[in-house]
């Protein structure tokens, strides 16, 4: 299948939901094109979290500079659920961090777009390698400690985990540290699609209630519809207020999403956790999006 990636780049400032949905659609289309070209990889999580990434990177919540990806005062984002990297790569490309054509190299030999993020590849916007679930989240807490406690900056750190990923005990060790060190500059986003590889969260290992756990671990916790831009932005505003007013509380956003959202035959199906569409499926998905 011959796919083309249209070279566009979107701005990072407050927008209407309608404008955000245009970007999210582009990201979803890119994800489908990347995966059908790669012939392997994860469809479900990336499609389901595209609205979260759109709000985070294109609505003024993250400070970054596409001309200088390593600039000192940037905010940092850590994708702890490393397998979801197609959505991060598509987001970064649409933010102008690297040419969109490079999306076609996902998972290929010598690519900067590794199957799981590899810091060694030097792809702009990739702050750390990740792929062993749970570890990115602790790394993000370390970054937030450095920014707030040592460098005393106003920089923010965001980290996204899956919900299956919450079964890793180290997640809760990191959560404990974030509130212990009063990291109000730290925002935890949980992609709560209720799916993991072997099935529904409660059938594989019940980690609910997530909201009560986050609160018990000291997080200012917001539950929102992860496909509603207004609700997502309201949740990020809670974090921005905590950070601005130095409340000493880290923020957790539990975004209720559907795996594979936007593509009818993938929607809410854990079978699509780690599968790419074949050509016929990709054509249908692109028609729907």
């Amino acid at each position: 299948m011959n796919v083309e990636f249209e070279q566009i780049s979107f701005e990072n400032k407050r927008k209407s939901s309608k404008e955000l949905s245009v970007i999210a659609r582009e990201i979803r289309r890119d994800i489908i094109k990347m995966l059908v070209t790669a012939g392997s990889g994860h469809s479900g999580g990336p499609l389901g979290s595209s609205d979260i990434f759109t709000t985070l990177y294109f609505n003024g919540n993250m400070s970054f500079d596409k001309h200088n990806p390593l600039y000192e005062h940037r905010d940092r984002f850590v994708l702890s659920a490393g397998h979801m990297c197609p959505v991060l790569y598509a987001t970064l490309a649409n933010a102008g961090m690297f040419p969109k054509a490079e999306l076609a190299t996902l998972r290929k030999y010598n690519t900067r777009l590794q199957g799981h993020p590899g810091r060694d590849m030097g792809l702009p916007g990739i702050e750390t390698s990740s792929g062993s679930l749970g570890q990115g989240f602790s790394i993000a807490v370390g970054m937030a400690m450095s920014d707030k406690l040592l460098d005393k900056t106003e920089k923010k750190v965001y980290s996204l985990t899956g919900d299956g990923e919450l079964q890793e005990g180290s997640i809760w060790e990191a959560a404990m540290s974030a509130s212990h060190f009063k990291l109000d500059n730290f925002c935890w986003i949980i992609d709560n699609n209720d799916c993991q590889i072997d099935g529904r969260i409660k059938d594989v290992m019940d980690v609910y209630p997530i909201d009560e756990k986050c609160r018990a671990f000291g997080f200012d916790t917001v539950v929102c519809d992860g496909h509603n831009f207004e609700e997502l932005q309201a949740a990020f505003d809670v974090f921005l207020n905590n950070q601005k007013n130095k409340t000493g509380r880290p923020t957790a956003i539990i975004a209720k999403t559907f795996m594979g959202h936007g593509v009818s035959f993938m929607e809410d199906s854990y079978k699509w956790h780690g599968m790419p569409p074949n050509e016929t499926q990709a054509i249908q998905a692109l028609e729907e999006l």
Partner: protein
Amino acid sequence: MEELKQYGSKPTRFGFGDGLVILGERHSNVVVLGGDITGSVMTSLFKEKFPERFFSIGIAEQNATTIAVGLALSGKIPFFASYGAFCALRNADQLRISVCYNEANVKIGGGHSGISVGPDGATHQVLEEVAFLRTLPHMTLIVPCDYEEAKKATIAIGEMIGPAYIRFGRSPVPLFTTPEHPFEIGKAQVIRQGNHVALIACGSMVWEAMIAAEKLAEKGIQARVINCPSIKPFDFETITVAARECGAIVTAEEHQVHAGLGGAVAEAVVKNHPVPMEFVGVKDSFGGSGEPEELMIKFGLTWREIYASALIAIQRKDGGSLTATRAIKEVAEYKG
């Protein structure tokens, strides 16, 4: 075995999955713990057949390892399988203290080993765990070469007493042993006779060593090929005899060159009968994304490197002057 005969290709993880089902049928106290990738490490077969003896632990490898210890100390034979990165290294402390120090009857199946994992990239391509596992007291460590051997090894570790780990891969590899072919924990097998150089390999590299031996034979060099699935306990005798009779050794493994099979052979050889040795394996680097075949070439894990290393080892034994560059040039001719 002698000649090279292939019966198709199959991933070694299939052998693990099928072996587990046979164990389940034979022993009612075999239980399996899942870590959310049961389809890919093939414990799903056991789950379907014996749902009451399967427990999903979720994405919590450290917990699964230590839960297995509790089950083992209560008379069960627990198997926990995940990707090697997560069930040999993420849980390293648990393996060392709770499993091995307790001599608990825990069995670990480690999948996605080596760079032949392919597109998933470096994070999932575990290349270091053999080095760690073979230093653990009481641990048994098996690296099977194909589907049949993986099946036999799975059954064998289930029927022995004590901690054990089996390392298997994701991608299909040539199937060349048969159900009749012997397998015994602690034994290496000479699968091709020869006295000029010994090629000692495990896992996916055994087949490559057989090809290298054929190519060497075309040049009049008779290589002995030794399949060494049992990294621990280790067959010192077969290896020492090979050192004495061949006088030159090449090891090959889909693992870092440090402290894996090559390390085990070197320790035996240096102590018992020092001879020139060459090591084929990943040279102190992480893997990366790509198709398995591309990566095996990129990281120097094909018969060509074994062939070139054999020429170098033989020259070193003879006090000759064939340099690495010249050997590699000869190999390039083969590629061309």
